[in-house]
């Protein structure tokens, strides 16, 4: 598996849209970090942009698999299942840990914002889950999955039971929920990617890459 991952990353540098994708990833990360810092962690959009950058990295791996030369190779399945799952899992753990550390610091600095900080972290967890599920489906069913993703991301604002975060939710509990969600998300992603494997790439994605 490690060999597959190494090969997968060697192939990413040959992705057709790598330059624009790197720009988008950098842009999303910058926006995410700026929103996080300027909003003192109270705005979930910071986490949203950071999660979106993970989504772009995941897509980088899958985009290479679109071309029939790659599809005719033994790496086809790994590029659509194991490699993207492992990549996004590692990145999610890393970024979530960073956000968690940031929350610990912010809660110590601004204890009055504790509930809002926990809530925004919870929303980031939900966004991360949505992103991994979406990224697994979008290469095969791009239009449908994008519509559903946008709708669900929009519905995030409905998460607003502040009482829950004020009273019964603690940071360690939320951290545990976060890590468990990432593990469950990765497992779901692996399962879904295997179920989706037999379907051809979305014609929309294919046309966009081959043009």
């Amino acid at each position, binding site marked *: 598996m490690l060999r597959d991952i190494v090969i997968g990353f060697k*192939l990413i540098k040959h992705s057709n849209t790598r330059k624009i994708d790197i720009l988008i990833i950098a842009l999303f990360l910058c926006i995410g970090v700026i929103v996080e810092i300027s909003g003192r962690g109270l705005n979930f959009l910071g986490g949203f942009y950071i999660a979106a950058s993970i989504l772009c990295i995941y897509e980088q791996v899958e985009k290479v698999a679109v*071309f029939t*030369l790659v599809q005719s190779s033994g790496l086809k399945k790994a590029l659509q299942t194991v490699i993207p799952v492992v990549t996004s899992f590692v990145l999610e753990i890393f970024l979530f840990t960073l956000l968690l550390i940031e929350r610990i610091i912010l809660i110590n600095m601004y204890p009055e914002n504790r509930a809002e900080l926990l809530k925004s972290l919870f929303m980031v967890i939900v966004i991360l889950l949505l992103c991994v599920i979406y990224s697994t489906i979008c290469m095969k069913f791009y239009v449908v999955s994008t519509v559903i993703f946008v709708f669900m991301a929009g519905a995030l604002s409905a998460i607003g039971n502040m009482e829950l975060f004020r009273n019964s939710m603690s940071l360690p509990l939320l951290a545990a929920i976060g890590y468990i969600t990432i593990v469950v998300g990765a497992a779901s992603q692996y399962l879904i990617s295997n179920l989706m494997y037999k379907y051809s790439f979305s014609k929309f994605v294919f046309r966009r890459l081959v043009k």
Partner: protein
Amino acid sequence: MEYTNVIEGKGINKRYGKFVLDIPSLEVPKGFATALIGENGAGKSTLMDILTGILLDAKGDLKYFGEYSAKDRENSYDVKNRIGYVGSKGYYFPQWTIREINDINKVLFDNYSEEKFMRLLNELSVFPNGGIDLKKKNSQLSDGNQMKTMLAGVFARNTDMLILDEPASPLDPLMRDVLCQMIRSYVCEGNGDKSVLFSTHNIADMENVTDYAIIIENGSIVESGFVEDLKEKYILVRGDAAQQEAISQHLYTVTASQFGFSGIMLSDDLDSIAGTGVVTEQATLSQICVAVMRHNTKLDYCPVI
């Protein structure tokens, strides 16, 4: 003739809207060059995509090299490493340079030889002025040179089978001849272990390299067999208008003009036309294929008299 199959298929079925590819049984003999012949939209590329694992949502059972299933093909590197594939659509990124194409092949396939790839690029004159421009993008090459680059990539690997989708279409007649030689050398050097399956419209150009033919029409295999057997099964007849009338019920297909007619019929029916005075000749594979395709086509324009 005794032979084994490099690929066997049972109950292959794939639906695309109104089009249905339905192949109850498929055999690709081992150690031979097999041509998959059919008109546009007959299902050749779909069948090849199914065989190479590019299309995975088709029904049916496949067996490779007498032992591997389609599941084995996807789950282990062994099968795909042994099969080289060239396809016409979306094979390389248009922006990939020759250097990148070489690097990617090197990364993807253990059995790839960089030295052989470069040598083939030279031999196939991808760059007419000699030398190799590693910075040249795939999209900057002509259709013919793009195909040559794909062929160089696949022939640079040590494989047991090649599946080539329309390799001759973008090539000039001289290069088609070179392609035939490459296929023949590949099959010969395998001593019965290397096989080629290629699809083509240019039956006449590829005839001299074809050992076995599979004719596909409207998603179904309508004829298949070794070329020698097909040439025994079908025969070409020529005659004048009066003779045509006398034997018309035995003709498989016919083309008529003011000077007479020529047609294909089954050799088994030869006794029935004895004494009519028509001339019989051995048909070429091209004539047989056109006759079989015409007999089975759904084309409206079909000049059968």
